């Protein structure tokens, strides 16, 4: 990055008759590891004149041949002797030099360093701990899924918030009113949205069975498309594809508060008897839950956004906390395979707890190996 509009040509007028600073020296380089060969780190010895007055910056200049021409690729302020050039091509030879800039002018280094070459690596060495935890987790999950398929259905404790979903739909049916489902305010790149949409399928199955109208306003277009598929699929699996209303799933607006305005409008005008919030929510959580509460509807919420849980907890009848949201789809479907994955997650929690206890003891004994190993980039 060329910071200075003055650039390498240098229009800084020499001032006060100060002489140009002495050059920096001893430029060395290392290839940045664990990357795709797109960066090199450069380190040099500061100019002997770097005393706070006589040096302003160092320009890092690069060229494809030791003779130049040189281009400034980056700069540092005086007193800094290292920089990573992140704009290199891999497996290409470069030459570097450092030019010292002061109020009195500029001085290029006396020698040129090169050829410098960035290469790529096959494995990111800082991520072994992530790999170990992931392999362990996937191993556990696959094992329990296989054992569930072999006929041993694992036990899952009651999760009251999930049982409340069916209860809420039941009450809406009794009252002859509709069910409102909100799959969160985020796009599909948030896995909570995926979890919410999977729960939507189970909800659609129940509303299809009870023949209760379902309204699903959606904030983002791709989740909207998937929500359509989910609701269709729910009605299909309940054996009532003809009851599916193509207007039940609606695209509203990705603007968080416009979406909220539309939902509160539905709440106070259509008066659904059950509100189900499942997905990723932000500041609007309280507004939805409070407006919903004032209409007297049963409300069940679920989110993994820690900062919003308080607002659902205080204003909803039931709230699924964090992991419970992800567990809900498995729990609702009751499918042995899905439930198997819950058991895998539990086993990894034991591993985490043991790691925390062992790690704290090691740290207390001033042994930092485990902590270091778990540091990632």
């Amino acid at each position, binding site marked *: 990055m060329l910071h200075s509009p003055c650039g390498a040509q240098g229009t800084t007028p020499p001032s006060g008759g100060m002489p140009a600073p002495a050059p920096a020296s001893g430029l060395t380089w290392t290839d940045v590891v664990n990357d795709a060969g797109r960066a090199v780190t450069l380190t040099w010895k500061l100019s002997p004149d770097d005393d706070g007055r006589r040096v302003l910056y160092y320009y890092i200049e690069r060229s494809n041949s030791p003779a130049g021409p040189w281009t400034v690729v980056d700069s540092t302020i005086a007193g800094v002797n290292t920089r990573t050039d992140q704009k290199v091509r891999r497996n290409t030879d470069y030459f570097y030099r450092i030019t010292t800039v002061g109020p009195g002018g500029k001085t290029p280094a006396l020698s040129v360093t090169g050829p410098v070459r960035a290469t790529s690596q096959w494995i990111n060495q800082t991520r072994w*701990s992530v790999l170990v935890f992931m392999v362990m987790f996937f191993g556990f999950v696959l094992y329990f899924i296989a054992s569930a398929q072999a006929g041993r259905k694992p036990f899952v404790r009651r999760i009251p918030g999930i049982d409340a979903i069916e209860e809420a739909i039941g009450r809406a049916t009794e009252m002859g009113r509709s069910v409102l489902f909100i799959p969160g305010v985020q796009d599909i790149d948030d896995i909570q949205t995926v979890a919410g949409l999977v729960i939507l399928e189970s909800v659609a199955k129940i509303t299809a069975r009870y023949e209760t109208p379902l309204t699903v306003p959606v904030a983002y277009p791709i989740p909207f498309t998937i929500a359509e598929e989910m609701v269709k699929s729910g009605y299909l699996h309940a054996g009532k594809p003809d009851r599916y209303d193509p207007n039940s799933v609606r695209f509203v607006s990705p*603007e968080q508060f416009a979406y909220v305005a539309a939902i509160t409008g539905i709440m106070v005008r259509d008066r659904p008897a059950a509100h189900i919030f499942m997905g990723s929510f932000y500041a609007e959580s309280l507004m939805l839950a409070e407006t919903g509460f004032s209409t007297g509807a049963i409300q069940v919420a679920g989110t993994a956004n820690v900062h919003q849980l*308080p607002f659902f907890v205080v204003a909803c009848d039931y709230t699924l906390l964090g992991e419970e949201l992800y567990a809900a789809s498995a729990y609702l479907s009751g499918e042995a395979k899905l439930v198997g994955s819950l058991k895998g997650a539990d086993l990894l929690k034991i591993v985490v707890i043991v790691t925390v206890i062992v790690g704290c003891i090691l740290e207390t004994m001033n042994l930092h190996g485990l902590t270091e190993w778990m540091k990632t980039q």
Partner: protein
Amino acid sequence: MSHDFGLWIAALLTLCIFSFLYKDNPFYKFAEHLFVGVSAGYYIVLNFWTVIMTNLWDPLVKAFSNPGTFSPQQGDYRALLLIPGILGLLLFTRLFGKIGWMSRWALAVIIGVYAGLKTTGFAQSDLVAQVQASLQPLWTGSLGQSISVILFTIGLICSLLFFFFSREHKGALGVASKIGVYFLMISFGAGYGYTVMSRVSLLIGRFQFLLEDWLGFK
């Protein structure tokens, strides 16, 4: 009072929305629908100019008007952007009933990318990194600090046990998960209290807009 027409519109819409606090009314309904329409339109325009044009159309034009510079091994895969272009158009098959199933290829790509990315992303940032940050010396040399750290560790472990699904919460697990619930409740209460400040600041900001910018009250 301001003589700026736009400011008047902004101030009146602000009042329309505040009126919802009294009850649902035609003014709020008007503002709500206008807001939904304008914001949906805004996001479509935003995605058109910043993604479709910038990330798809421009690179494609460059790739095909100047084929010599195309070098995939250096991360220049511009011509291949035809693939998402075509998949994106396939999304519109949904509008034509019978061949709607073709749109699922695009959905499959989106889901595959984000499921893979987030699985590893969360494994790193919210699993390994959070566990790593919890490994701290239980004795720090100061009694108060040490008690706090020990309390923290107990709270973390008990709250984790609350999320245990495959055993009934009875006996020791029951006690631990109960302690976990206490920690969760303190956390929720604190989270609520912590947020009051910024919410009130937002309201102050809106009132200042009405009082100062619109009514000219200093």
